[in-house]
């Protein structure tokens, strides 16, 4: 276990893609302390920003990093990581676990935008709220999430799972607008309420809204009512659910499940069945 403790409250954004189990693996404390990070426009050593302790020398294949403190200004933690574990006891900055391929990240606090952006594998657990673009690609890019799991126990911002192709996002709180925007595959589960325009331009995949949904886009068509929905593996959610197909504006074939019980205002769709 390698422990990082911030030495002070950070004021400027910090780019710290080196905070990753793959980079720390097999390095001595001195080597880790000497890693370069950018704080604003200044290049710094990791030891200028964090107190670093190696508690138990890791002999295993992968190591565990624990960050205790507020790192809400620190970006790109766990970027491109392939294995190991990062535990963050506090808030985290943008691009957490960007392009990660494996391993696990658990954040106990809130996470800023672009968590799990372009990820291909591994697991991210967020116990607080998450910002916008959860699992979404970099601006302009269409390379969405290609695999892995993201679980958020709080609320998330807009455009969660945009351009997603594979993998699962589970949100146990509320979700912002445009969840699953331009999604091609994979699953998004939203346990509580969801803002409008969910699944805009989706061409495939599955979005399940178990809470209240203001309205369904007019480019979706109702298909049937399902008693339950499978989320991941053997995990089922009991319904009943309205099943909408869309987005027809993109000749899409995505599935949008909306809880029937929580959304009595959508009952007018039933006459099209």
């Amino acid at each position, binding site marked *: 276990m390698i422990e990082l403790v911030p030495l002070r409250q950070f004021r400027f954004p910090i780019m710290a893609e080196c905070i990753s189990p793959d980079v720390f693996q097999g390095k001595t404390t001195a080597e880790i302390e000497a890693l370069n990070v950018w704080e604003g426009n200044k290049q710094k050593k990791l030891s200028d920003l964090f107190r670093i302790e190696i508690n138990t020398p890791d002999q295993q294949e992968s190591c565990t990093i624990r960050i205790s403190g507020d790192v809400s200004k620190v970006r790109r933690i766990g970027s491109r990581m392939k294995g190991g574990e990062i535990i963050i006891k506090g808030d985290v900055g943008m691009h957490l676990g960007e392009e990660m391929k494996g391993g696990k990240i658990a954040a106990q606090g809130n996470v800023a935008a672009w968590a799990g952006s372009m990820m291909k594998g591994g697991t991210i657990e967020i116990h607080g709220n998450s910002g916008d673009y959860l699992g979404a*690609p*970099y*601006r*302009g*890019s*269409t*390379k969405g999430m290609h695999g892995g799991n993201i679980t958020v126990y709080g609320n998330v911002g807009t455009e969660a799972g945009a351009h997603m192709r594979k993998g699962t996002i589970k949100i146990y709180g509320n979700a912002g607008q445009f969840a699953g925007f331009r999604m091609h595959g994979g699953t998004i589960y939203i346990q509580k309420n969801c803002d409008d325009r969910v699944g805009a331009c989706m061409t495939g995949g599955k979005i399940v809204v178990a809470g209240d949904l203001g309205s369904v886009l007019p480019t979706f068509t109702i298909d049937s009512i399902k008693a339950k929905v499978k989320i991941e593996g053997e995990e089922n959610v009991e319904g009943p659910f309205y099943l909408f197909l869309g987005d027809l504006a993109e000749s899409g074939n995505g599935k949008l499940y909306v809880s029937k019980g929580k959304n009595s205002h959508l009952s007018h769709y039933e006459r099209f069945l």
Partner: protein
Amino acid sequence: MKNGFVYDPICGIDGEKMDIAVRDGKIVQSVNERRAKKIDASGMIVMPGGVDIHCHIAGSEVNAGRLLRPEDHFKDFERRTPVTRSGVGHSIPSTFTTGYRYARMGYTTIMNPSMPPLEAKHTHEELSDTPMVDKASYPLLGDWWFVLEYLSAGNIEECARHVAWLMNSTKGYAIKIVNPGGLEAWGFGHNVKGLDDEVPNFCITPREIIRGLCKVNKLLNLPHTIHVHTNNLGKPGNYSTTLETMKSVEDLAVENKPAIHITHCQFSAFKGDDWRTVESGAEEIANYVNNHSHVTMDMGQVIFADTTTMTADGPFQFGLYGLTGNKWVNHDVETETSAGIVPFRYRRKSYVHAIQWSIGLELALLIKDPWKIFMTTDHPNGGPFTAYPRIMAWLMSQRAREATLKRINPRARARSLLPSIDRELSFYEIATVTRAGQSKALGLKEKGNLGIGADADIAVYNVNPELIDPSRKYKSVRKAFRRAAYTIKGGNIVAKDGEILRHVDGSTMWLDLQVSEPAAMTDEMKRRFKEYWTVEFENYPVSEDYLKTSRPISVKAGV
């Protein structure tokens, strides 16, 4: 510059070991050897600085492409150094980075081929910000209202005077024609389907536009020919349109001089009825070009990479948008032209993309005379210009081609003509297709050669032609071309081993056309400017002081 193997096709020097003397930015007969700074180029190749005849590096269209693609910047960026500025972009690098990257490859002269006259100021602002290279721009004239009107009335001389006015006003260098008539039609949601399809509202056909502007080009004594992006570009079966386009000006050529330049010909050389049956029309086009002397063309080679397509050909870009479902910019430049931008990824495993890759190389290898076909990627349409060394390796080595052939779509491989072509270009021919031929076609007397009086733009590559056989060791050749050992611009060493040593601005070349009688600017024209353009007639021209480093080229017109 001592003891380099010099390749200078314009002066007919083929790998001779010799010294080059430079004084005050020009190549001279000799200098005082004791006082001069000497560069030891022994064991290296010395060529004139590279010339690129067709490369979209500046203008509103390129800039819209930059805005459209933050993800293109994200994966490729350059840090600031004490000499250079920072920059981003892979397929559409920012202006400064464009200049640096060209200089690293030994290129010193770049032609920006697509400038809507209305956007001339913007284009020149960006060109002024593109360092390290000399540059020029071609205004788009194939769909310019007044040109269409003059031509449909058959008034070639007045049309020529008008073009001269426009060339001076936009500080342009050559007449660019994109999908003649089609862009005007695109303003109404249509396109033209062939050379004899009438343009809506103008009673004129693409054939008449091309022939008319070809005559205008000759009347004005412009150094370059008309620069034509054909009708039906990017559509299966379009090779016949290309052949017809070349035939349409056959009778206008004088003394075996070129009369037309077909640009990015690869995109205009498709045979077949639809995308499933598309195949190469390179053989037919090459046969025609081999038997006629009035045509030059450039490849528009496709690179298997993620890039951004951008042309003034709005309807073509719309088709591409439909094909890919990718993001798309459509732009109607008021009355003048259109434009479209679509990000695109060429994939090895795609049948059509692999065929396109093959067509570009087939054209370059089947056309026997390297003075007729030049190396381009139509940056960024076929791929970024930074891929030029890869194309040079493909042209110089059958092994390099086979290595790529092995990895492409099997059906495309079976249909490709490349396995049957064993031609491999020599360094001399590479110097022709990358600099000498281009500069000759452009009429740039001081570029693309190392003769006495030429600009001292020199590229030195660290590859020994006596020791390295490019056919076998294509990888070391590719590496050498990627990072020039020395790039010399105007007598200054600007890059060494791929590192920029010095920032130079590079000049903007434009044609200062001397006409005996100025173009008639009727009140009717001014009225229409007021009515249809957002820029007033008086504010329209780009004045010379707008250019950071202006380099007018005086041409006496025949009207």
